[in-house]
């Protein structure tokens, strides 16, 4: 299968601290991959490099596009990367709390719409059509993700699990080809986690979406991911299928310490 993302030798230094040290990672088109590792391993740093929040110190991040040469994402602006089709959610939920659920998703359509100041003031037919399309598309996404009943609710008033799903809905509105989820199941109860699992499977199937997932819930990771990358202290210590990772001694050591010989998952 074709690659969608290829990260080569990615290094990120913060002063003397190497948060990422020569990480290689690749995701195939339409695949769910997972990035795991103990706290502080550099998983979120990798996401931040990937989405333009940090400019990597060295290495290449290549995004493959249909019918075009791969695009190097290093040092591009955050919004440019979003326009290229990479969307993300945040580990600590970052919704627009004072806006309604629908408005949150409508913001996601920003990159895919274009009316400007004059359009806003004079509201010509083109702008009206676009505005209606934004509303309709946003509502359709909310229906798809089972958030339609909350449509006019302020985002900050939603229950926790729904807020996490709204982050996904908002990211979907940008029409990504690659979706980066930073601990989507954090703080969810088992029921909500199961629903999330179903949603992600549905997403991948319906939209041929490639998903990279950071997650601590091993059950979720093992069920979903075809390919797992393990980071520890900024270095990649293992990669492979869930089965391989489960029995990998380096991974077990990183998670459980020197002595342990238990298996994870």
């Amino acid at each position, binding site marked *: 299968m074709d690659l969608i993302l290829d990260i080569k030798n990615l290094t990120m230094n913060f002063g003397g601290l190497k948060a990422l040290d020569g990480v290689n990672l690749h995701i195939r088109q339409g695949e769910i991959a997972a990035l795991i590792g103990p706290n502080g391993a550099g998983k979120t740093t990798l996401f931040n490099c990937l989405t333009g929040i940090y400019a990597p110190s060295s290495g290449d991040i290549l995004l493959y596009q249909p019918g075009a040469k791969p695009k190097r994402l290093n040092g591009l602006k955050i919004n440019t990367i979003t326009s290229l089709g990479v969307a993300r959610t945040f580990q600590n939920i970052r919704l627009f709390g004072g806006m309604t659920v629908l408005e949150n998703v409508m913001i996601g359509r920003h990159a895919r719409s274009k*009316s400007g*100041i004059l359009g*806003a003031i004079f509201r010509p037919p083109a702008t009206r059509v676009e505005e209606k399309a934004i509303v309709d598309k946003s509502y359709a996404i909310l229906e798809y993700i089972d958030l339609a009943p909350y449509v006019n609710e*302020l985002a900050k008033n939603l229950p926790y699990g729904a807020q996490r799903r709204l982050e996904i809905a908002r990211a979907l509105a940008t029409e990504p080809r690659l979706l980066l989820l930073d601990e989507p199941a954090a703080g969810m109860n088992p029921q909500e986690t199961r629903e999330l699992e179903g949603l992600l499977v549905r997403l991948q199937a319906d939209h041929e979406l490639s998903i990279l997932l950071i997650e601590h819930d091993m059950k979720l990771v093992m069920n979903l991911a075809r390919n797992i990358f393990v980071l520890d202290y900024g270095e990649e210590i293992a990669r492979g299928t869930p089965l391989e990772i489960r029995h990998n001694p380096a991974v077990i050591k990183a998670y459980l310490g020197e002595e342990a010989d238990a298996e994870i998952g």
Partner: protein
Amino acid sequence: MKYAPELKRSATIALWLILLTFPIMVIQVNTIENIVVWRWMNIAGVGTVAFVLSFLWQIYQHRKTESPLPVSAHLPAFQRLLADPKLYRPMLIFIAAFALVFPFTASHYQINIMSTALIYIMLGLGLNIEVGLAGLLDLGYVAFYAVGAYSYALLNYHFGLGFWTLLPAGALLAAFFGILVGFPVLRLRGDYLAIVTLAFAEILRLVLENWNALSFGPSGISNIPRPGLFGIELTLEQSAVYMYFLLIALCLLTIFVIYRLQHSRIGRAWVALREDELACQAMGIDKTRAKLTAFALGATWAGMAGVLFAAKTTFINPASFTFMESAMILAIVVLGGMGSIVGVIIAALAIILLPEYLRVLGDYRMLLFGAALIGMMVFRPRGLITPSSRTYVFQPSEHQERT
């Protein structure tokens, strides 16, 4: 005892206030007879009043938390009025009729202060784009106002250009200055942004005050022409009325444009920027562009207001553009409710007209004005009108928008 904790708290507050006011309320040194008078009765008064007031307040708070009301009922009566077309339509008609009749019944002085209030409505709405929508705390908004006023005065003085040419020119120049300030402060937020914009406004004021060759210094520019009306000669009273209607028209234009902007893709981007800068960028919004448009569009209205101000007073000097003005305009936005057009209009009228009509109270008027502001912040900390989000009604699966 149902209210035991409240009683206890009120007693503590009363005791604290007694201790606090003891030196001024009780001890009085009589310098003529060289004796100290202990006025114990005063302290009893302070204690009782403090106790009763604080107890009533706490009971009120207690009741409020005890009976949770549905969301719509949480809105103040005034805002419910705004939400119902049956109620606000007659109100709008009444306001329109009043605005039409006002200049023909009121005195010259009244028309003038109303015109001033209208200028502040424009300023408040303009700053509302920056502060209320985009969340960019600008303490130097008056700089753009000055740019507008001085562009009219100077370009008219040197090149003899007329009001109608310079109204858009002043607005454009101010927008240009907005972008000029916007660029260096793109990375700043909150307090830092406030300080830099404040400094910018001070720099501009000092330049205007000291660069005599350009701005005629502190003595200012006088004999600025009033706006013309197809070459008809107007008396002082007539031109005040003309100015008043001109301002009404431009205020309506401001309201229209800002309403449209607020409910557009760009307006949403501004609000998203205010709510969470990083998430907003991750949604594909160009932060640089969003901030610069907010600065430029906010400044445009200040520039226009500046031109109108210069034309109305026919004299300007740097003393009109001090930090006090910026603070006043910011107070209008905060008091009105960040991001609310109606709120800003009411607040502008209140802040400009109240001190004028309170003149009968003489020296106490500013005291009362201050008390009113503090009272506002205590009872309605989010401003007169809390901006409410637009609600959309959908039929499941075939979704129709009925705003």
